[in-house]
């Protein structure tokens, strides 16, 4: 049997550089992706959720809301894209929370790796989930008859914009994940915040049909800007103002929640 531990006491390195930290981050990204692949439930949820939304909204509500399924799909798909990706950000918090409650995070923290790597790895790994969500929504939407009428470049910008927004939102999710007592808690609290945000917007219906007080909320809701920007980028229409506002919101959410999440994370460590 070979000796499993070396007898000489090594002299440990003094610190880990940025390159080391990035290497740690990529290893943990690899882990997240591997987990998506091996966890069938997660994978099914990720793939089926956008498909369900598309089928539901297009065929159940489409006729009533817009007088025709195809017409409604052209209107609602950008919204469903936003909805799928924003709900998917809850996964970040849930996975973080699971890592904490199962003790996996303790193991990471006992290793000589960059402090921020587990957090960064989780976020980066989730970007791959969000990309999957975007691809499924757009792909299945096009099977149902959605057509991108703007230029391909503009559509690509649309995908990028929703991903950037998700990157900001997932820090909010991470914060809940760090504070909640269980993954179920993350889900409940997340939905409590995200439901009014997502549905209190022009995501699925036009703002004009709502009562005044609700319109006031919808008009400042970041989801409204994001959806408007997505409509513009995918099917044509005004883009500049909603896109800039979406980016500003994303920046604001990031600036508030990323440092908070990092702070809570550090306090836990």
């Amino acid at each position: 049997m070979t000796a499993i531990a070396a007898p000489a006491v090594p002299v440990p390195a003094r610190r880990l550089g940025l390159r080391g930290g990035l290497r740690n981050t990529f290893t943990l990204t690899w882990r997240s992706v591997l987990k998506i692949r091996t966890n069938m439930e997660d994978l099914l949820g990720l793939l089926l959720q956008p498909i369900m939304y598309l089928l539901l909204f297009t065929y159940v509500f489409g006729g009533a809301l817009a007088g025709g399924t195809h017409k409604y799909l052209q209107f609602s798909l950008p919204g469903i894209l936003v909805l799928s990706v924003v709900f998917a950000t809850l996964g970040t918090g849930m996975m973080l929370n699971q890592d904490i409650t199962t003790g996996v995070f303790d193991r990471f923290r006992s290793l000589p790796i960059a402090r921020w790597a587990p957090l960064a790895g989780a976020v980066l790994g989730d970007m791959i989930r969000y990309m999957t969500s975007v691809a499924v929504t757009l792909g299945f939407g096009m099977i149902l008859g959605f057509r991108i009428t703007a230029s391909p470049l503009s559509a690509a910008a649309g995908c990028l914009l929703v991903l950037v927004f998700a990157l900001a939102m997932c820090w909010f999710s991470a914060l809940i994940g760090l504070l909640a007592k269980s993954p179920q808690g993350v889900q409940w609290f997340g939905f409590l915040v995200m439901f009014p945000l997502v549905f209190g917007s022009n995501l699925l219906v036009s703002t004009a049909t709502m009562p005044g007080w609700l319109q006031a909320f919808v008009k400042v809701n970041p989801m409204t800007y994001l959806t408007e920007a997505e409509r513009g980028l995918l099917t044509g229409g005004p883009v500049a103002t909603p896109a800039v506002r979406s980016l500003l919101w994303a920046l604001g959410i990031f600036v508030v929640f990323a440092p908070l999440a990092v702070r809570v994370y550090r306090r836990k460590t």
Partner: protein
Amino acid sequence: MRYDATSAPAIEATGLVKRFGKTTALAGVDLVARPGRVLGVLGPNGAGKTTAVRILATLLRPDGGRASVCGYDVLRNAYQVRQLIGLTGQYASVDDGLSGTNNLIMIGRLLGLPRAQARIRAAELLARFELSEAAGRTAKTYSGGMRRRLDLAASLVGRPRVLFLDEPTTGLDPNSRSDVWLMIRGLVADGVTVLLTTQYLDEADQLAHDIVVIDRGRVIATGTPDELKTRAGGQVLLVAPSDPARLPEAAALLEALAGAEVSTDAEAGTVSAPVTDKTLFPRVARELDDRGIELAEFTLRKPSLDEVFFAITGHRSDDEDTKTRELEETR
């Protein structure tokens, strides 16, 4: 700041204090682990064992006191400490969603091993811990004993100099427990320093060179296993007559022969006495036989942790105070 293996202790803690809200988990704990030896930290649930381990493994900041591993301060030189330690928690902290192999490859990669080497190291450890057959399955499908072994393997990927084992056998069946014991002995043979927390006196007795007994956040005794057992009154002879009616007779006989006070448990139908000399066992057996007292049980046993505790502290280890403390600690 080079570590000198001949003089410096592998682990040293002085006056560690930790509070969780109103509860004081550690009220000034001192301990020292000699290089290449096993230090057993013995105590009931909620005594503060896990808190102490978490501080020593750089997971928790102490509110007072100092601690170092191989001469590196756990607060100021946490990064260096982490390169020297391995940690296996009470609740196996393996990634359920990954296979055994990928769990270990991930740790190897995080420690900076190139991909091929991480793979080799993983296979090596899986073989050593008899997990090769299950290597490709997700850890979710593992039994409790297998998870514990994988957790132990994960803490060894980086060839640690100092290994923290927090109740490594709690909740394991006797077979898995002796497997884990065997593996710990193997590590010690390789020169690893081990800090082992346990609730079981026999486990500390089997594995530890030195023992620290913790109760309510304080060290209440230190010494070798033999020293501690002597303090607790050595071995105990337990007699249970088949016919409960003959218990008083057996008790009187035992008291006369042992020359010490016996304790009778009428409900269980047993009487026990501290063993003062080696000949007591055969003498008692002979006398009982002569009088025709048939026996349901006749055993020599080591004092339990409870008895060690009772002898040292004068109180039982499972009172209310300890229970609230345990809740705080596992929060």
